[in-house]
């Protein structure tokens, strides 16, 4: 599904070129559950952003579903965001002025889902994450774990085929973290959703099938578990 070839991402500073990512080759198949690990500043978020079309590589080729990404226009990228890719962020990034219900509903609005259908879909999500009682609260009235549940619910409501999660459990207790990981695992196994997550925790990484280690912008170790 995802094919990265010799991807470079760099920042030019006066005479110096700072590489954030250098020579990344990566293949990810549909149904994979991948954990990207590595020290802070290694370029994990940048890689995830490139995969999710939020950032562009400076060099190299990127094929998404066998289509060259550099050939996609704004609108096509947005179409993928609407119907194919779901994002989860470490800082949740919920919209402060919208309630839990409205935050979850938002992707459906951009997908122009009908009112009644929207209602039932949001209700399902609230149910699934046990946050029905919180639906009229605003994000700042929730704990971090609850906010991230809303973030996940928002990512899942569009039934994406690919979930990109950047340290989704970074700010959460282990119980909450596990809950979210279980959800991912279930989605991956039952619905065949492809998941790429960034994490610092080995425990969280172990929910995935494969680990990619990133160091100074380069892949150092691909899939350590399989080698063991």
């Amino acid at each position: 599904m995802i094919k990265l070839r010799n991807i470079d991402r760099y920042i030019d500073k006066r005479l110096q070129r700072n590489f954030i990512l250098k020579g990344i080759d990566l293949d990810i198949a549909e149904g994979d559950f991948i954990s990207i690990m590595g020290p802070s500043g290694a370029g994990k978020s940048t890689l995830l952003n490139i995969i999710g079309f939020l950032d562009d590589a400076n060099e190299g080729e990127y094929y998404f579903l066998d289509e060259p990404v550099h050939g996609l226009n704004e609108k096509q990228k947005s179409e993928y965001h609407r119907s194919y890719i779901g994002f989860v962020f470490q800082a949740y990034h919920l919209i402060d002025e919208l309630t839990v219900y409205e935050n979850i509903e938002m992707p459906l609005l951009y997908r122009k889902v009908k009112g009644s259908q929207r209602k039932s879909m949001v209700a399902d999500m609230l149910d699934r994450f046990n946050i029905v009682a919180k639906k009229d609260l605003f994000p700042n009235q929730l704990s971090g774990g609850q906010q991230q549940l809303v973030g996940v619910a928002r990512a899942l409501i569009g039934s994406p085929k690919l979930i990109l999660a950047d340290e989704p459990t970074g700010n959460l207790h282990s119980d909450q973290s596990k809950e979210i990981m279980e959800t991912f695992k279930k989605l991956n196994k039952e619905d065949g959703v492809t998941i790429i997550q960034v994490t610092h925790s080995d425990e969280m990484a172990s929910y995935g099938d494969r680990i990619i280690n990133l160091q100074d912008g380069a892949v150092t170790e691909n899939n350590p578990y399989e080698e063991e």
Partner: protein
Amino acid sequence: MFKNYIKIAIRNLLKNKAYSLINILGLSIGLATSLLILLYVVNEWSYDLFHSKSERLFRVVQTMESETNVEEDATTPFLLGPVLDAEFPDLIEKSVRFYNLQENSHTFRNKQKGVSFKESNFYFVDSTFFSVFSAELLRGSPTEVLKNPGSLVISEELSEKYFGNEDPVGKILNYKGVIDFTVTGVMKPWPDRSHMEVDLIASFSSLNQIYSADQEYDQNWLWNPIWTYLLLEEGIDATDLEAQLSAVEENYFYAYSGWPVGETISLSLQPISDIHLYSDLNQEMEVNSSDLYLYILLVVAGFILIIACINFMNLSTARSLERSREVGMRKVLGGYRKQLFYQFIGESFLICLIAIVIGLLLVFASLPYFGEMVGIELSLNLFSHFAIIPGLLLLTVFVGLFAGSYPAIYLSSFEPVDVLKGSAVQGKKSALFRKMLVTFQFTLSIVLIIGTAVIYKQIQFIQNKDLGFDESSVVLLPTKQNLVAWEFETFKEKVLSFSQIESITGLSKIIGSEKQENYHVVPEKFGESNDELNLAFHTTHDLVETFDLKLIAGRSFSKDFATDAEQAVLINRKMLEKLELNNPDEALGEVFYFYPKDGGRKAKSVIGVLEDFNYASLKKEIEPLTISLVEGTIPFLGYIEHTAVEIAPGNPKEALAHIEKVWKEVNPIDPFEFQFLDDRLAQIYETEKTMSTLSLAFSILCILIASLGLLGLASYSAQLKEKEIGIRKSLGASVTDIVKLLSKDFLTLIAIANLIAWPLTYIIAQNWLENFPYRFDITFTLPIIFIGSGIFIMIIALATISYHALKAALVNPVDAIQNN
């Protein structure tokens, strides 16, 4: 989705109440001001459009030209209307004549009730009146009410005044003791937005009860006391008719037996809706207005709206950080940039909509005061015209687009990655743009302040300027061809018999007023063939005494010299210079040739030289002048139009009562009317005065709106620098240091605004002042005004900023640091 947008817009408004208030209030004030101005301008532009046939309605006017004089009159001879009807039946549907006996005051009496009043808006009109003008009758039928001689139609208001609650139809109103009119109809009030006012109209045929048939008053093509209006046939172009009018000029005017040799006549048509703004002829029914100041007002309205929009832009972009996460997330979830742009533009529409509602409330609240300021009764009825509400919505959309486009483009440009990284969303570019906008706002404000100061200063200068004559305690009486003119010497003697009266004289034109006349007057020195025009003023004895004019050589007119009227002339210093003489005494005995209206040539020699005085308004430079003496009834009737009476200073009441008594003895027909000369002269600057009041009001509003914006920005920058301020304070910075830190940027911008505004206003002020030959000393005063307004706006800005700077400076530093 729409609901979602509205929700988030409203929640954002409520979240930052202070900002929202500043934003909305600024826009509301700006919109209200612009609406008021627009209302006034539209009002001025819509004169006489209420006539349903206004596009086909024209007034015939005439220009009579001789070698020495050009006379442009709004009035025409009696027979012109019927003649045009007969000559051009295919072009003209109907004509209507108006005649007021050349009087402005008409006495009507209800004998039964014993009430009588003076009316000024009375005309004899043709019976076609009601089919040409859109006047509505409450009583009577349009085709019948003006059919018979002696018929009178009165307005609803007058019906109440003369008849109370009784039905006036069929009742008698006596006119000047001469005609008993029978009221045949009652009209709805004549709209204010007309170049004429009409309260009473009588059938034109009633005139045969005033003039006897053998007078043939209506056969004279030289006498032009009639306002003639034409309703053209549908689809007829006025220029088609105009092109054929020369035949009428030839066959009627020039063919008239009494037509003076050498005079030319030309007729033209004025669209009725143009009269109010573009016509300034002799014998206008009312004083008309001019469109120049309308354009200036529209520019000012634009300024104020721009300043209010800039507030909106500045505050929205300054606070963009708060919306950046939302933008990033919406894009991550699949929102197009276009959709985000629409969302933010929509928000600015919403704010504009709220602002326009508040603005309308402000308009309604301030309309009476504004009307008083501009001297017009204005009203606003949202439903009076189908286009008003759509127009307001259009304005909302326009302002929303103008104010909202830049913020919407800017906000929708945020990229999710930048938001995710929390990296500098606060672009340097937007900060610079904001600074430019603030500078622009303050430049406009300063231009307005300086403009106000300059106008005010100039008006003050004109009012205090020594005119070279004493305008105080002089009473003017209209004496054009009335009984006082016939009996002037008797009148004069009787008026002077009272101790409070100092002197009395007749004038061809009002001294100090705008209109003066050119005549063919040639100094012998320049040769007889010289055909240049010079100003020639005509007066009776005692001019110099009445106005305290200063004689610098020779003597004034005197009864001791019986030949003065025929052979003597006074000149002013300017004429002396024109004659290239240095010493006033040298001018004595110089000969001038006069070519009077009735033909022939008169030689007059200079008997005295007067110091220059402003016989025309201060809008005109003093020119070389000759003053001739008029003696005897016939010359008086020919030249003198006003009588000036100088009364003793102090309480004028007794003196006026005496003059009125004498007037009534000499002239029982015309009502006694008077005007003080200084009041009359002040009228000349009425427009300038209104402008100065308006520009004062608008510059105050301008500063208010700009300061509101500054208040918002200052509070925002204080918020941004909260941490820096905390650290600085913990390091021992004083409150003054903090205020300085926050004010420095803004004050620099205002200083720049001053530097831009000064040369700009210098050019504008100089241009405007060029209209006035007499103006205050710019070189000295203008820099003072510049620096004064600069300091003024600095103080206002500093006060605005200091509020937030002080607030920030007084916060406990530990709180500030911890909060971040």
